[in-house]
């Protein structure tokens, strides 16, 4: 009997939870705010679903309901992607070590 592909995805999911668990524990507490903003940015990879929805079908009619929802999701996710990564970058630029002089 063949294994359902769902089981493979579930395995990836469970393993990724474990990876996430160990990686996040190693994040230094002083960077917890950037951690939140960057996880927020990467979770916007949900945009792939929005792209599929928006590009669906061969018809030129872009006013299908499912496409419209796709387009809206693209805007939301794009705000998040740009906003999330840029604000993270902005924060991380501020973390500096003590200057050696004096």
């Amino acid at each position, binding site marked *: 009997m063949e294994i359902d592909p769902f089981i493979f995805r579930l395995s990836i999911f469970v393993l990724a939870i474990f990876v996430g668990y160990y990686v996040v524990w190693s994040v230094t507490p002083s960077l917890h705010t950037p951690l*939140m903003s960057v996880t927020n940015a990467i979770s916007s990879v949900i945009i792939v679903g929005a792209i*599929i929805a928006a590009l669906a079908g061969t018809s030129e009619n872009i006013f299908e309901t499912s496409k419209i929802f796709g387009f809206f999701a693209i805007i939301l996710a*794009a705000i998040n*992607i740009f906003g999330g990564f840029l604000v993270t970058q902005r924060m991380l630029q501020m973390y500096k070590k003590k200057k050696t002089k004096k």
Partner: protein
Amino acid sequence: MISANLSAVFYLASGILFILALRGLSSPETSRQGNLFGILGMIIAITVTILSVGNFSSSIIYLLVFFVAGGAIGSFIAFKIPMTAMPELVAGFHSLVGLAAVFVAISAFLNPGAFNLGSPSNIKLASLVEMSIGAAIGAITFTGSIIAFLKLRGIMSGAPITFTGQHFINLALGISIIVLIFYLCKTQVDSFFWSVIFISFLIGILLIIPIGGADMPVVISMLNSYSGWAAAGIGFTLENTALIITGALVGSSGAILSYIMCKGMNRSFANVILGGFGADNSSNEVGKNKDQKPVKNGNAEDAAFLMKNASSVIIVPGYGMAVAQAQHALREMVDKLKKNGVTIKYAIHPVAGRMPGHMNVLLAEANVPYDEVFELDDINNDFANTDVAFVIGANDVTNPIAKTDPKSPIFGMPVLDVEKCKSVLFVKRSLSPGYAGVDNELFYRDNTLMLFADAKKMTEDIVKNIE
């Protein structure tokens, strides 16, 4: 355009890049590189998706227009937002992820063919369950984050809103979602799907309103986690590895942060979520003490004298510093003190501020080097050999009652041992108790000097008095 197998490999690659993005945050030096990995992963995922759909009709123009529009808004926000507003920004961003998840789930429900999930009203059973769960969690994330945003922004009062039967209603709504999903799968009738989303919106609101302002670090972390699980749910629906990996990463990240925050308050997750903490136990207990005990009242001159002649000072910032935007003035004060040969350290309690790491970002913004900033466990032993503790905008996290009085609501919470310093300076606007509604006995100690003023104004005055 590209085969499903090839795109799956690319999705895996972007998932790995996202792992590296989080890995980079283990130290500030590697963090910027980590962020670039994250951006690269995102670019790969988006490009591969567009190529694999391979439809270059006019739709793609609209897609780009919407993408650029969203990107412009996002960039604008990212550059304009003041660092003190980070908590509400993150809450706001979570709501967008939640809503995007709902929209994608709706698209997939309306046009399952595009996602390879069957045909309308004949969607594969597993996909239907996955998309309903994704939509439900997404909807909860959306409205929950909106409420959190409003509370953090001060548009809505931070006071917990409670009413009788609250938890029972939440439970009933939660069960009804499961029942509705069950019937949705059985009948494929779309009104069940809409009801699931609607009720989830409602749960999101009801879940967050009973939680008070200072418990927001837990709430934000929890919503962070939810947005991850929502993404993972959609990832299963779309059979997309990048989404599944990301969802799992974000989900566990938020869960860990919630755990750390709860531990910082010595409260169980359930206790925070059930809410109502700090609602009304403030008035009775405090009124008694206020007039009886004498308080030593100081001014900027005294504080400046004390710190200038100290050999070491530990600064304990809290939410009050963020509210008063006092971090820059504080930095100025520290520079002056350093010129006088005073050793300075900063002590950060895990739940100081309104989100994990909030104080660290503000200090970094004010150009405080991160190697002068210490976490509770690393610095708590140093208070005993320190001359002055300068508490600015923190309260409950310094209250020694947490160590001594088992009846206190904050008993057992790890606190900063500021009372072990030779003297303690407390910048505070009044003697009012902190969020937990507990009087801080430190105020009445002999070695405590209260500085009643706005944090920023007091710090500026001290700066003037140091020269």
